[in-house]
């Protein structure tokens, strides 16, 4: 049985719908991981000890265990304590928090690298520490780590395939559905790969635009 790409058009809409879900889950999780990363970084650096220590445990959970297990825990595990999340929401939370922890590491390092004079100048004008962090230090730190955060977001896109295991019919699962009907794994996995590649190009274009935008303010 050779390759036969002529089966693709019939299931193209299925796979395309999957691609749309992949974009949706990636964008939602990326936003959560970005803003979550900022909040986590500030907590890790500035929160009082009784917040910081439990937070470390939470961080370890997300950095030290497989994302797959985290998704299972959020989707199947939380039901037992009465939190019954739709698969899409569970997927966004799992992916988003997982990458938020990685983004937080980057942002923490960047916050510590912002020149001490910035905080001093802000405090001298009468800003509180919180105001100075929010308006002066954190924006600069985030700006400095846009490129590595972008790399994390590309990794997030690829890891979004994992949410197929909790039943979100994103790109990978949609390809599998088409394969189930046609028995044509090569053709549809290649098609899925092409879609991933296109989404990837789109993300890189967006990231480049953001980088260019912040470049002026240096």
């Amino acid at each position, binding site marked *: 049985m050779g390759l036969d790409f002529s089966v693709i058009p019939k299931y193209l809409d299925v796979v395309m719908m999957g691609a749309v879900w992949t974009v949706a889950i990636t964008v939602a999780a990326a936003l959560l991981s970005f803003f979550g990363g900022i909040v986590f970084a500030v907590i890790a650096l500035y929160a009082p000890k009784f917040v910081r220590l439990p937070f470390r445990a939470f961080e370890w959970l997300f950095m030290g265990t497989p994302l797959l297990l985290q998704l299972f825990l959020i989707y199947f595990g939380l039901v037992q304590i009465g939190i019954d999340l739709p698969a899409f929401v569970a997927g966004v939370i799992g992916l988003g928090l997982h990458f938020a922890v990685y983004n937080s590491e980057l942002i923490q390092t960047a916050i510590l690298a912002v*020149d001490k*004079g*910035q905080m*001093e*100048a*802000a*405090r*001298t*004008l*009468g*800003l*509180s*520490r919180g*105001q100075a962090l929010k*308006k*002066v230090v954190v*924006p*600069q730190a985030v*700006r400095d780590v846009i490129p590595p955060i972008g790399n994390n977001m590309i990794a997030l896109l690829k890891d979004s395939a994992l949410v197929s295991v909790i039943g979100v019919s994103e790109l990978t699962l949609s390809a599998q559905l088409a394969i189930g009907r046609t028995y044509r794994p090569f053709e549809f996995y290649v098609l899925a790969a092409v879609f991933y590649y296109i989404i990837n190009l789109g993300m890189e274009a967006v990231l480049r635009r953001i980088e260019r935008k*912040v470049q*002026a*303010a*240096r």
Partner: protein
Amino acid sequence: MTDQKPFVDIRHAKKSYGTLEVLKDISLQVHRGEIVAIIGPSGSGKSTLLRAINDLDPLSGGEIWLEDTQVNMDLPHRQYEKHINEVRQNIGMVFQHFNLFPHLTVRENITLAPKLLKGINDAEANKLAEEQLAKVGMLERIDYYPSQLSGGQKQRVAIARALAMKPKVMLFDEATSALDPELVEEVNQVMKALAEEHMTMIIVTHEMGFAESVCDRVLFMDQGVVVEEGPPSVIFRNPQNERTRNFLRKHLADANK
């Protein structure tokens, strides 16, 4: 003027890092409208003293007063933060390395604090920024980012940013030390203009010529003490203390190298 209550009153300021005493019981009274220069070798404690005035470097002992308010009041942490944030609005500070906010435009650098702390709206904030920038001759750069400015321009913007809070006193911490020689003059001009408006100023500087021409009084500090103080004509032309003489001689020799 001198019979009035002092405007800035430093009483027995002491500061040590471990066993190293940086400030050894320094007292200094500055009156409203007075311009005081602090000179001395590096490590003499002059910047530490300046930074103690707005509590950037808290003292280990002694009191700082601004008019009728004690700056370094003994309060529980939360209350103290509230207190110091209010006090600092009255004390403008200019740094050696400008410390402009690089992610904000010149306009935003100036309007950030007034908008946050004085609750003024965008139109008022813009007017304030334009006024202050016109004062330092930087109005045409209002929408530039700091990275697009020269060192002298950055420092002029930094001065405008401090002035936008309408401070009662301005502190200058080696404001021209990081500048290329040809850019020093434009910053000095701005400071002279402020002096003519009778802004109260305390200036830590290495520029003896500027200190002599602008200041009412000069303090020479060395090893954490005020060795000698007096009008610039005395300190620069006829210093009484041997250490002052040595410092000025060495400084002059370095400057002429």
